[in-house]
């Protein structure tokens, strides 16, 4: 059940009024849990077993942690079990495939069976969220949650179940404790967020996908201009796709009186790679920062250790996105980019003399280049794309102008939003006009989309 599909509209039309009726009663959370589990089981009822395992494990581990001296042991149990679950379902086939290649190259006549099941949607997101609860409790940052129902809602809350944001217990569990105090503004704000997200996904991301997929499915058939444009368009496609999902998730939660964190903050306006990661998929970036980068030592133990920690964090972050070497290389490229730019950003020449727009352009170009590894089907394909960008001809420089115009309009809007022109965007006629145009475009031109959300595959 996806937010931009009709079954979800029907689901929400049933769930929401009952939620409103129950909001002041003890039945609110049981109802929310039932709805969330139904939402997840709609995709595959077997998924419920996995989410229940994770939920029960961390709930029990924290109970055991609170009554014993062996807190670290129980934390290890939680981390090992969660990572094992993730490793088995997400990386099982990847490890088996690579092991088989290795065995073959060593002439060892044995083949490891490759698991044939699909990755349960949302697994990486709720496992990380559940792990953050046990880690935060271990660190003494949060209290133990006594109600299993509340904890289960925290892990499975349907607006954010499939692709985040990866919320922290401090933010989300705290909200579940209280009766939601929401006004009609929460409903109108939620609707505003949902419409923007819906437009980003259906009208922009899925539209750009038509061109991007055509080029990336057969890169050897295209020349430099098409490959450059497709890469540029993918850069925006993945942003519209994922931030669109997040907007919809936040909008739905907002309508229910729950505030989910801001996950995207106009990332392509970042003036440094560090800033990019504080604007892109903020919930994951901050998760890795808090639970991996800082525990590894962060930037406190000299340059070598700082860069080692950055490298590890970025490579693991890459691998989190998918079980393929392309994601590892993507993480590696970003790590190398951080190494280079971190030193450069310290110089007064770069800090004071280079105009911000040039810095933004540089970061955008670098990030766009790195997306090649993210989108390509294999390292070979990525290499073909890169070499053909620089070596193939410039014949037939066909240009999907409507797509580029739409992208430019969005960039201009974001640019204005972060500049002195922001008051113009806040004028009532502008805001209403933007909404009417979006709804009209969706009503007239947007096709019934069969494109899945990109990040749900992670």
């Amino acid at each position: 059940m996806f937010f931009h599909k009709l079954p979800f509209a029907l689901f929400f039309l049933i769930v929401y009024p009952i939620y409103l009726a129950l909001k002041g009663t003890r039945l609110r959370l049981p109802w929310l849990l039932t709805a969330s589990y139904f939402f997840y089981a709609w995709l595959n009822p077997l998924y419920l077993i996995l989410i229940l395992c994770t939920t029960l494990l961390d709930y029990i581990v924290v109970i055991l942690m609170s009554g014993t001296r062996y807190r670290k042991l129980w934390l290890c149990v939680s981390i090992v079990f969660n990572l094992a679950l993730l490793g088995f379902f997400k990386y099982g086939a990847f490890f088996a495939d690579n092991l088989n290649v290795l065995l073959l190259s060593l002439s060892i006549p044995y083949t490891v069976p490759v698991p044939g099941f699909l990755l349960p949607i949302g697994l990486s997101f709720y496992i990380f969220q559940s792990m953050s609860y046990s880690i935060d409790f271990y660190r003494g940052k949060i209290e133990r949650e006594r109600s299993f129902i509340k904890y289960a809602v925290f892990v499975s809350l349907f607006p954010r179940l499939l692709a985040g944001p990866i919320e922290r217990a401090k933010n989300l569990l705290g909200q579940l404790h209280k009766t939601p105090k929401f006004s009609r503004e929460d409903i109108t704000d939620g609707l505003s967020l949902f419409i923007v997200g819906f437009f980003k996904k259906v009208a922009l991301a899925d539209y750009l996908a038509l061109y991007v997929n055509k080029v990336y499915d057969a890169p050897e058939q295209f020349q430099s201009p098409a490959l450059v444009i497709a890469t540029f368009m993918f850069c925006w496609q993945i942003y519209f796709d994922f931030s669109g999902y997040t907007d919809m998730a936040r909008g739905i939660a907002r309508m229910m009186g729950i505030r989910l964190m801001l996950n995207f903050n106009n990332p392509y306006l970042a003036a440094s790679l560090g800033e990019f990661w504080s604007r892109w998929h903020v919930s994951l970036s901050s998760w890795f920062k808090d639970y991996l980068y800082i525990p590894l030592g962060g930037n406190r133990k000299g340059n070598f250790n700082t860069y080692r920690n950055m490298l590890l964090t970025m490579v693991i972050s890459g691998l989190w996105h998918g079980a393929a070497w392309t994601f590892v290389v993507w993480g590696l490229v970003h790590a190398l980019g951080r190494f280079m730019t971190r030193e450069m950003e310290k110089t007064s020449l770069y800090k004071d003399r280079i105009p911000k727009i040039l810095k933004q352009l540089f970061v955008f170009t670098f990030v766009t280049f790195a997306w090649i590894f993210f989108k390509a089907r294999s390292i070979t394909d990525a290499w073909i794309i890169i070499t053909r960008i620089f070596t193939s001809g410039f014949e037939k420089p066909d240009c999907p102008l409507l797509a580029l115009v739409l992208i430019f309009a969005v960039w201009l809007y974001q640019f204005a939003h972060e500049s002195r022109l922001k008051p113009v965007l806040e004028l009532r006629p502008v805001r209403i006009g933007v909404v009417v145009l979006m709804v009209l475009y969706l009503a007239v031109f947007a096709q019934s989309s069969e494109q899945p959300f990109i990040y749900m595959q992670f």
Partner: protein
Amino acid sequence: MQDNQTSRIRDGSPTVNEPQVPFSSNSVRLSLREWLVAAVVFSVIFCFAPGLWERFEKFEPGPDYRIPYELSGNYRLYDRYCQWACSHYETLIIGDSVIWGHYVSRDNTLSHYLNENAGRSRFANLGLDGTHPAALEGLMRYYGQSISNKKVILHLNPLWTSSPKADLQTEKEHHFNHPKLVPQFSPSIPCYTASHLSRAFAVAQRHVPFLKWRLHLRLAYDLPSWTLNHLQWNPLRELAISDNYDKSRSASKPGRGDYQWVQLSTSLQWSFFRRSIEMLKARGNRVFVLVGPFNEHTLKPDSLNTYRRMKNEIEAWLRQNAIDYYMPPVLPNEFYRDASHPLSRGYAILAEQLFENDSFKSTILNPGED
């Protein structure tokens, strides 16, 4: 005190004790009143845009016009063409791809040769590719309402009763043409298994002008797909796009077939065809039925006998109901492309035969003289 705590300000600040969460990274944020204004603006567009669009959209069909093949699903265009044809032509020819002229260019269709025989433009080609009788009945009912008090040649292609599958009788789901035109709820079509929601939407699309207009825009000016498939900048193409569609190069002539003809008494397609006749007559039209000519050369002997028996039943029903008709003799095999589609020469012969047919003369050519 509680009220003060929960009071909110418009910059996205949460209530006291709630987490500090920014609203969004854009300014698209409407209050209830602004949502209502947006709803009113959208409603105005919803109500008036289709009508305004029609005033400004150029639609000037030339001689031998037919609905472009790629726009076969654009029923609003068909509706508009019906209105135009009713005011410009004496006689409308309605049917499936046999009338449309699937394997011939627009100046080699039946309507063209009839006009040639008449010496002027009297016959409009209102054929639409793929419209089996069940779909044709829906097409006439919802998008051909302007066809009243006209002379109508209604074509019956026996191919649609050549098997339970073609007759839409099979229980197993299968794809068939123009599902949005067939009855969505009643009478039930066994092989049609669309969800209730999509059936309801199909019904709404027939009646709500905005939805008709939306379908028209998406088919005639599918801007998103079009811009990606035609990467040169030219977003607004002409409505009357090229219809030089010619399948003759890709189609091969079938061998002799053993058709599983269905009984007329149980045939869905035949019942829909009869409903079409009744509907057209009820609107004051003078209906002339053209049956075939089916390519009997493709039939095995047993199948041919069954087909002829069925044809006799059709003829008996038409006589019994006092409906003028013509059942042309089978054309030479080389004048067919497949089981039911004549080629250019076939259409020319058929037009000549019609002009010599007494019933055609009295019903269509000289209705005042009978």
